[in-house]
């Protein structure tokens, strides 16, 4: 049996002794080769704490972490040669230029021709012309992109990303997501990803883990999580037969909302075709139809609402 790229078992972090606070409570999951795994949850749910423990920059209270089948606590340095990290919440020495920063990091990974590795990535992220500028002269978005260059120029097998697109404009965010998928396609790397942008997560992640109060409350495909809390929204602009439509919905106990001539129903995906068929048979005519898929955002909002 092939061992997962990253295996986490019963990971626990308790802060303090007098008034202990459990930030992460018995978290277990696997990250497979080539998988993009989203780690989601409201603020304070334990996402960043988990990532920090997976990097070794935060001690664990108990639990096991294995990368590539090796015990992380015994082989940290060896493992970190193949693991990298980027976060919006850290920076790089701001008096150093981009080139100097990357040179130092390249030395940590034993990379000889650092420019050959970094220049294509700097170019890809549109900051090659700023290579000899100090980090202090870069915008927040450019620093975020530099952090991604730092994370990827070392040819990692696993990348841990803590909200890597938080400070980016939508178009740049989209480009970063595209880049991550390209890299996965090209190198087969595994990505553990936290974000508050649910659309991005749904687009990017093969699987999603939801944390709440330090506990995994869901581990599933993004679309399954979305479906678990919300239905498809069918929106019709009725031309003729509004009363018949409402009567039919009430008879079938289908929830709806009404606004002027627009009526919106909450339905399961499989209920939509027979429902539309029934309306047609009842002689209802409509000017427009809109179908909205259940969203991961709805799931997130529901979890966040519950935790408040």
């Amino acid at each position, binding site marked *: 049996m092939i061992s997962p790229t990253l295996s986490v078992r019963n990971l626990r972090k308790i802060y303090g002794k007098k008034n202990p606070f459990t930030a992460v409570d018995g978290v277990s999951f696997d990250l497979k080769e080539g998988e993009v795994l989203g780690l989601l949850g409201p603020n304070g749910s334990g996402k960043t704490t988990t990532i920090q423990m997976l990097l*070794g920059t*935060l*001690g664990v209270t108990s639990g096991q972490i294995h990368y590539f089948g090796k015990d992380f606590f015994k082989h940290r340095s060896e493992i970190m040669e193949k693991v990298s990290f980027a976060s919006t919440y850290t920076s790089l020495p701001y008096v150093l230029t981009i080139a100097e920063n990357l040179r130092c990091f390249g030395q940590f*990974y034993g990379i000889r021709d650092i420019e050959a590795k970094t220049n294509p990535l700097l170019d890809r992220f549109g900051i090659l012309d700023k290579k000899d500028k100090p980090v202090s002269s870069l915008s927040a978005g450019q620093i975020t992109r530099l952090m991604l260059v730092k994370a990827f120029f070392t040819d990692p097998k696993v990348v841990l990303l803590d909200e890597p697109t938080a400070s980016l404009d939508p178009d740049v965010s989209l480009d970063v997501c595209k880049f991550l998928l390209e890299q996965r396609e090209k190198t087969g790397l595994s990505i553990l990803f936290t974000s508050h942008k649910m659309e991005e997560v749904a687009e990017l992640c093969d699987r999603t883990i939801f944390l709440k109060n330090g506990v995994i409350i869901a581990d599933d495909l993004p679309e399954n999580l979305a479906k678990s809390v919300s239905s498809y929204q069918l929106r019709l602009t009725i031309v003729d037969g509004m009363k018949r439509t409402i009567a039919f919905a009430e008879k079938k106990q289908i929830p709806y909302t009404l606004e002027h001539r627009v009526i919106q129903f909450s339905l399961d995906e499989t209920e939509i075709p027979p429902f539309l068929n029934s309306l047609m048979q009842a002689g209802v005519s409509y000017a427009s139809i809109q179908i909205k898929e259940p969203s991961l955002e709805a799931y997130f909002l529901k979890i966040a609402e519950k935790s408040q």
Partner: protein
Amino acid sequence: MNRSRVYGVFLRYFFVAKKGLHQLSDIFYWPFVDILLWGLTSLWIRSQSDIQNLPLVLMTGLIFWQIVWRGSVDISVNLLQEFWQRNLVNLFSTPLKFREWIAGMLLLSISKLCITITFGTLVVYLLYALNVFTVGWAFLPFAASLIIFGWTISFLASSLIIYFGHKIEMIAWMIGFLFAPFSAVFYPVDVLPEWARAIAWCLPTTYIFQGMRCILLGGSCPVSYFWISLSLNIIYLIAAIFIFRWSFEKSRHKGLARLE
């Protein structure tokens, strides 16, 4: 120990040192001001007293104290750089090992020290026509012993800083001077009150400064001074690194990100 990673750490702080005005002022400006101030003071004292070698004693003491002070701030200020530039998590989310980090910082510390000593010696010679190398070949083991104690102080300061964080960062610059009065940098140990003398003889620096004065005032330095100093240095340095390692692990347990 991976040499590429040690060199990476060296480069990281070297790049900062060559750009940071305060780092350059530590290497050139402050030693220059000290030499000027103490040199003129000692010239005046000589004109008022019988001790002919006093300027040389004070100047050599000053250069030697620069070695201790230089070492005492190097590690802790490098650590603070990581706090200020929110880079600690980045640094330790790489394959870098704790001992490689230490080795890289010590390498840079030695390099900076060589520059400071060369510069200081040259300034003393040009301004006062005094040669601090009058102590002869003893200079090298003396300097080695002094920088080791400087590092010991810096590791102790770093242990406190990494454990308690920003709120005590001033300790990086303060702690070195705490040892100066007890090390008898500019005066013999006999000048100190009895309780302070007991502390003084526990410090490796005291033996070096006493030995230095013996040589400069025409005598010879007891060999035992050097060996006692070296022995104390080794014990203290190992203990200080051990304490720093312990504090670092405690801090890592609480989370390095909290320090940024």
